[in-house]
């Protein structure tokens, strides 16, 4: 296991380095000049040059990348803004705020959004899928299928805005969704994120229901499930101990990917509900050509996906003893 983890970690580091480099260089491939975009209403050439110098854009691209990398590992000094300790992600081109702090400020919301939605869609998605598989062909299965279809076709912006309009503004059943730190007020935390959790999980639930249902249906035809029945084990045990185990493998696979994406930022959900998470940071970074922020959000998303893929691999080995971590 240790050898496996070491190997995968090194692989992950290499992957992330490549992603960082590609992102960095792609940024400069786009014709938009970040200094120009960050420059004021009137931007004579001299001021533009000064802006470029202030943002460190006057050095050659590879040199900027090395400086960024070095800052990440060892910290970096910025003129006028002081020393930025490792891991230094720089200062936003747009508002000169330290990127690391901004990311850390937004991360709790994104993590909360992810965690809450994940609990919901796992519970409902897998639960509904199992029930649909067990009641295959019967009304409950059909209802579940229709509901999945609707859920999968739903647009968060549409449903979310609709939900806000009715539930929050017109009927005033719920309050405006907001982020309250968990440590401060757990009830407020859950209440404030309830609507975004439900809407966000709608789409994923559909996916999990479908995957769980089809895998479970397959699993129920497995020979060893038949054996378990032949041994006289109660239905509950047969499904829970045998059929479910095999169903977990594809579920775990897509869960790892979904988690990685959600941590990268649920952009549409955040925008619809006015929440400030990593997603909006990422979008703003792209539209405002904010290189330091862009690098940070890309790296965060990539790291999340890479880490979760390692975890998923480990989980495979835990779920299925035939899988060897090699």
């Amino acid at each position, binding site marked *: 296991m240790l050898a496996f983890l070491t190997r995968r970690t090194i692989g992950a580091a290499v992957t992330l380095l490549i992603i960082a480099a590609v992102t960095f260089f792609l940024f400069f491939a786009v014709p938009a000049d970040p200094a120009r975009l960050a420059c004021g209403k009137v931007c004579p050439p001299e001021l533009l040059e000064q802006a470029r110098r202030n943002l460190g854009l006057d050095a050659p691209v590879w040199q900027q990348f090395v400086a960024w990398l070095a800052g990440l590992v060892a910290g970096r000094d910025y003129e006028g803004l002081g020393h930025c300790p490792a891991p230094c992600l720089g200062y936003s081109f747009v508002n000169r705020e330290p990127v690391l702090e901004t990311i850390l400020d937004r991360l709790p919301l994104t993590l909360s959004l992810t965690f809450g939605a994940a609990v919901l869609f796992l519970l409902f998605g897998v639960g509904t899928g199992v029930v649909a598989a067990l009641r295959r062909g019967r009304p409950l299965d059909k209802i579940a299928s229709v509901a999945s279809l609707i859920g999968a076709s739903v647009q968060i912006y549409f449903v979310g805005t609709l939900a806000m309009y009715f539930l929050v503004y017109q009927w005033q059943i719920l309050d405006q969704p907001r982020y309250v730190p968990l440590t401060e007020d757990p009830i407020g935390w859950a209440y404030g994120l309830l609507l975004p959790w439900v809407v966000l999980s709608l789409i994923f639930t559909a996916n999990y229901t479908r995957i769980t249902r089809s895998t479970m249906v397959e699993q129920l035809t497995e*020979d060893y499930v038949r054996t378990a029945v*032949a041994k006289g084990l109660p239905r509950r045990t047969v499904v829970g101990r045998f059929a479910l185990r095999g169903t977990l493998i594809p579920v775990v696979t897509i869960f790892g990917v979904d988690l990685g994406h959600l941590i990268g930022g649920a952009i549409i959900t955040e925008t619809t509900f006015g929440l400030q998470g990593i997603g909006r940071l990422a979008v703003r970074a792209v539209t405002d050509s904010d290189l330091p922020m862009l690098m940070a959000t890309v790296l965060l998303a990539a790291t999340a996906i890479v880490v979760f893929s390692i975890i998923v691999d480990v989980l495979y080995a835990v779920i299925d003893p035939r899988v060897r971590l090699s």
Partner: protein
Amino acid sequence: MSTATWTTESPVRRGPGPFLAVRDLAVQFTTEEGVVHAVDGLSFDLEKGTTLGIVGESGSGKSVTSLSILGLHDPATTTVTGEIWLEDRELVSADRATMERLRGDRVAMVFQDPLSALSPYHTVGRQIAETYRRHKGGSRREARERAIEMLRRVGIPQPHLRVDDYPHHFSGGMRQRAMIAMALVCDPDLLIADEPTTALDVTVQAQILDLLKDLQQQTGMAIILITHDLGVVANTAHEVLVMYAGRAVERGTVREVLREPRHPYTWGLLASMPSLRSPLDVPLRPVRGTPPSLLAPPPGCPFHPRCDFVDLAGRELCTRERPALVPEHGHADACHLAPEDKRRLTDARDDRKERA
């Protein structure tokens, strides 16, 4: 569901009688193409301490029969009619709770491919122990001890170490032994073995079959042994039932059926078996034709399209009227040929065989 119709047999005695009595079993599957009649009116008896071999090619309905005993068919797509009496209890109409209590406890099953039939996610010991705990209760420790004991009984070396291994750590033969151990952990009265040796090497086959015989002697359980291999039947069974297209076409003791087969299909089966003694250049003689579709079984004898003796028996008869399995007890066959013809043809076969 019980249907009180059987045609030629006299009513079965309930109460003390055969250990297992199957009466007019019919199993139908609803598929997209239509209704498949997998088993079409099957009846047989089984006594304790004996082994019944059910023989037939793929699609003959032998596995379907065995699954019906334990009620392992999917109720959504399967219709089972007829009666299956386990001593004084009828199984086709039994409810789920009753069946769950029975399975693994009084009636156990061993499947064909132990690699797929054992859960890859749990240790062998766990899988054996859980059957024991389910039916007999007991602590984890006791169940584990029992599992080790069973592994020893089926001849697995170092059982106290192997008990914590996963099925994929075992060789094919050992796996099958483990499955047998799992089936026998609660001392069942009836063991159904569905092609237990098909997936194994020949040498290992023999070991498994011997093991089954030993265990039967020790415990007095009845065994239904399902196979397509007449050699296996010859070796291990007391009685044999030949199935074709979901029906029994011949039934009797092993000696009766193999020495004096009376049904053209049985002749075909026997003739198609390659012999170690026959010269290499003699071509194999399979039964000509292919098994029938079970979607809409035609009237008459199901074997008649492949039978060489249709004209002899009477074409009208063979294509119109379904032959009954007669006589009711003893060596029986379902064929319209006159008994003299059957005897004559059997002898002719023997001559041919001796000359070959």
